[in-house]
């Protein structure tokens, strides 16, 4: 069962996602020094701090905790994508970020850099918002893909995107050709949307009583922190 906590997203005060990569050491390498071995085994560990929740929301949360059954239940969170332009910012913000003038907006098209237009007096269509799309089918295990759409071209380094609740963080963006971590959990087909405005993540509690804090939370006003590890079940 998937418990969706996205509706409480506006109550978060802190969220911290880190990739945990286990390494091992088989002993000395041929150079006589210890060799550290690593594979592609990184998993997300998420820490989510919530502010106080009142009334009906709290009751709903308690009901969700009942459904969760400790580590059995899967929790879906929406992740705040700071520092990058998203579709939810609206097209006005997108156009402003691309330095499109008011005149061009009122015309409904943009001009060449020397302010000329096509021979029929029109220009390039105004870029539209909307979630970026993947331009080519990309296999699981990949760490690079190409995004189309104005939002995808501008995705900031360090920002998130998600697909099917699997979360990825951008490491490089060269005009839509992005490199990211961790490697793709599952293949993405050409034309599929990735979520930038409202990336989602699915995780499990690291211990069965991880949700128990919510029971005491309203009374004692203690900070609530959920610690989750990436859930692979789909």
């Amino acid at each position, binding site marked *: 069962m998937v418990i969706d906590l996205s509706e409480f997203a506006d109550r978060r005060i802190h969220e911290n996602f880190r990739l945990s990569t286990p390494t091992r050491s088989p002993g000395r*390498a*041929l*150079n006589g*020094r*210890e*060799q*550290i*071995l*690593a*594979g*592609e*085994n*990184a*998993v997300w560990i998420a820490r989510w701090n919530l502010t106080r929740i009142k009334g009906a929301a709290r009751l709903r949360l308690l009901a969700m905790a009942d459904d969760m059954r400790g580590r059995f239940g899967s929790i879906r969170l929406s992740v705040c994508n700071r520092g990058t332009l998203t579709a939810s910012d609206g097209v006005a913000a997108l156009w402003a970020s691309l330095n499109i003038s008011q005149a061009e907006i009122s015309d409904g098209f943009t001009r060449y850099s020397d302010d000329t237009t096509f021979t029929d007096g029109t220009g390039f269509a105004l870029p539209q918002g909307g979630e970026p799309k993947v331009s080519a089918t*990309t*296999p*699981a*295990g*990949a*760490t*690079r*893909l190409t995004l189309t759409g104005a939002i995808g071209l501008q995705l900031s380094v360090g920002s998130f995107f998600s697909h099917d609740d699997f979360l990825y963080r951008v490491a490089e963006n060269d005009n839509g050709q992005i*490199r990211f971590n*961790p*490697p*793709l*959990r599952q293949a993405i087909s050409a034309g599929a949307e990735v979520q930038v405005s409202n990336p989602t993540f699915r995780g499990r509690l690291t211990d069965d009583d991880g949700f128990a804090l919510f029971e005491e939370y309203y009374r004692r006003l203690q900070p609530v922190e959920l610690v989750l590890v990436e859930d*692979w079940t789909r």
Partner: protein
Amino acid sequence: MSLLFNGQPAAFREALQSDVAKTALCLELDFRSGVERMSDWNVPFLDANGNEWKPYRGLVSISPIEGSRSSTVVEFGLGIPWDFLGDDLQPLEARGLLLEKIGDMSDYAERVAKLSIQYFSRDAKDAFGRPVPVGSPFALCVLAMASVRASFSETRAELILTCESFLARAGAPVHSYLTDRDQQRRSLGDNGLRYVAEVTSTSQIWTTWD
């Protein structure tokens, strides 16, 4: 041994001498019904021959591998395929299916299981940003699949694949004779060969009651 190192590309030798290396533990099981390749990664990867190694799931555990001559058996813990655990199957039905597969020994018995380490380039990536393997997989052991056992309890289900060395098996000839002792070693409790006179090479002496 020198052939092992000289036959590998320079990038592989560099990886062996490096302070850090990217590796994957690979298990290849040559079932009659098809080759299964699995690794300890959580995403798939392609080797130099274009074979895809499946992530996780397949390979759950490996018993300690010792280099001594007396230790010739390795046990691999395998993930139980979802086909046998699916939502629409009753537990008893799932067990039946699994045991049926285990009973089909020709699918695995005496066939090869290879455990190897694949090194990867630290920097080179393919078009999709996947790490590029360097050299051939470095074999840790090449074994013959011998037996499979499944155990079920309230909290877990286990599938253990026992593999034996081709060169020296635990106290037995390479290809075992059809003796009761060998049969007991492979399938404890199977008394099928106990009283076969031709096999045991003994003369049955019947009492004359005198």
